[in-house]
């Protein structure tokens, strides 16, 4: 019995769109989606991932 999780449905759709645009988002899709789905994603972390900075630096 699954409760409705609208957020997850939104994330699934977003992930699909990012995968369709691999030329732009490779190789950050996995790390980005993990961060967006996390409890408290931060601007600093997302910026770090987008700029492909090392995890230690973000």
């Amino acid at each position, binding site marked *: 019995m699954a*409760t409705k999780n*609208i957020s997850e449905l*939104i994330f699934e759709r*977003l992930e699909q769109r990012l995968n369709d*645009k691999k030329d*732009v*988002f490779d190789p950050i899709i996995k790390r980005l989606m993990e961060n967006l789905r996390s409890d408290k994603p931060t601007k600093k972390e997302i*910026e770090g991932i*987008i700029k492909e900075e090392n995890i230690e630096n973000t």
Partner: protein
Amino acid sequence: MRILELTVENIRGIKKLNIKLDGNNAVIFGQNGTGKSAVVDAIDFLLTGDITRLSGKGCGYLKLSEHGCHVDSREHLKDTIVRAKIKIDDKEIVVERSIQKPKSYKVIPSSEKEFIAPYFKIAELGQHLLSRREILRYITSEAGERAKEIQSLLNLSNIENLRSILVSVRNNAESQHKNAESNLGLAESAIKNILSLQSFSKQQVLDKINEKRHILGGKPIDDVSANDIKKDIVSQLFGGHESDLTMDQLENTAKELRNIISGEITIVDEGEEKKVKHKEYLTEKQNELIGLMDEVKQEAKIKEYSLYKKLFEIGASLIDESNMCPLCGREWEGGDFKQYLASKQEQNEVAKEKLKGVDELSSYLKQHIDLIAKDFDVLFKACQKFKETEYDRQGHDKLKTLCEKWSASMLDPLTVYETEKWPKQDIRKMLESEVLIKIIEIVDQIVKDMGAKYSQQQLAWDALTKMEEAWGRYVESEKDSRKHEKSKNRSDLLLEYFQEARDAMLDGIYEEIKGNFESYYKAIHSEDEAGFSSEIKHKEAELIVEVDFYGRGKFPPHAVHSEGHQDSMGLCLFFALNRYLASDLINVVVLDDVVMSIDRNHRRSICSMLKKYFMDKQLIITTHETAWAKQLRSEGLVNADNMYHFVNWNIETGPIIEMEKDLWAKIDEDLAKDDVPSAAQKLRRNAESFFENMCDLLESKIVYKGHHRWDLGDYADSAVSAYKKYLSRAINNAKKANDLAKQGELEEIEKKANEIIQKTNIERWAVNEEVHYNKWSEMAKNDFLPVINAFKDLFGLFTCSCGSTISIMEGVGEDKRKIVACKCGKVFWDVQ
């Protein structure tokens, strides 16, 4: 999940209460202050661990631990308990929560805790309780607040927070990209100045470097790199000059700046090249930018162009040959609707272009302003080194601040425009600054002096030295620009895709909620608003709810509708959200005095709506109006066993309940004690209430009384008269239809009814208000028993064996004949 039994101890106004609901609908009714809401609070607490009434605006000082318990139990929180036996599927489980530990709940058997957890997770959303106050939450709140409330219910607050973060990430990336572009332009400009280049290309730079290398006896190099610029050239002493600035650089920088403030540039205007004053052109671009921003600010639609784009696209795809508007369902009278929407789409493209124009113009201006600032800095350094005493330091600082303000404003002009941050002086003023003109004159003199002093070799050596640094900066800037361009593209697309995904999901959700909301509302207001429609849409962080008002357009729900209609809307929106959120997990719905402003007819429609759409729910309804409680029973929503009449309350005992189902049993108890007055009082009060309800259900007439006080005699006479009239009509109609069986059945009922009515007419004096004080004290139990039995029989005339009372209604079929019937259909009289 349904509640079978509820036990409340020391919560709010309740000391101890136990009610058996058996998973069925229930109504709790009674005057104000009898403890009804305490039951609502108890259910709320059981399901959420909180009491809604104690939270929200104006309740900041209220605490669950101090105000959620019975006032005498504040020191004994362990005794504050709500316990319910609930049923999920075929499992019966006991759940218990105490104010001592409000966030946890006990499950018996404990092995079911995991099984029950998802239900309580949904329950914690609080979408099972609607009070009059909650209705306002949906109807009268601002769009932004409503969105927050509903997004919080939909568990979407995290999505909205994330959207804000992504907007911020995108804006940051855009600014950083603009800065990087500008820095790259400055790096190119610096190289152009050092090497006296008119335009910039890597080949031109290489050629110029090889030219300088040739002057110094070096061989040409194949590619530009900072390490190779002076490769194999032996350092020579050219007079020991070690300036940070080369003569060419100074000369060209002064030239570049002079060109901006007083020179001309070539532009292409309507396909033709023409020369214009550079200063005029920049001023023109600045004015163009301000004009565009004024338009964007005035027309909010421009900023929302992507939203409107979607609206027009969907609209156009839904229009067919009928030229009907897909939203309001009426024919478009303004010509070809498709063409109209196409023109709107074109206008929308213009809006998009305008925003693009703001971006392009601000980038163009930023690059030039940064260039002016950079050139100004270079010249200032020269002045400091060679002619410090002649230079206006204060004027320099002011101009530099103005340049910085312009540069910063161009990063996000739409946000900064018309705020304190927007520069007070325009670009023309900046370019006409005396400080700027003076510094160029000083530098011209410096260059003249240097030219007389240094040889060609010295100048070539200086240029290559300077190029080593400048090329390094250029390479870094180019790399940086590429990196920021990539980040900008990613953050742009990420935000776009995220919003697309969110919109697609929310569109679907709101469409479902809207569809249900309209169905429920139309079920209640089918007579006056059969064509009702609504719009529930989100716009960025807002949730817009607008409703149709008798085909005159769409308005906010609290704008033009009556208070009663607003209450209906709140109720329907609540149910629409509840249907979406609670799904089939939580069946309990508590309605706390929510029909206050709704008239009797529409309440009946509410009953029909609830029966049509919510028979899968367990409705627990509270009201201070006995008539509404009775109506719920007569409409078949609540059975007699689940009517809880709270007749009194005191601080020691909590609510005192009189249950209708116990009426005859309680009368028997009174009679057992020979307390006839008490029994007669109960009978009279209940009979009065019963016949008042029957008058309503049979649409019978009552003699008007100016003091608005009608008694049992008035109600019973009127109801009995209507009963007899309908029964007589039904017999006649059976005769006409040659339905002998029906005729016989009805005549038998009539005969029995006449006997009962005759008997109660004789006995009614005993419960007559005017005489009871004189007679009751003289009556013995055995005198009063026939009265009881007569009224039992009389009640029975109006009640079917299924338990529901009869009422007049419109029959089914083409002619829609009037019938008197019960809910189960066992009673069915054609009374047309």
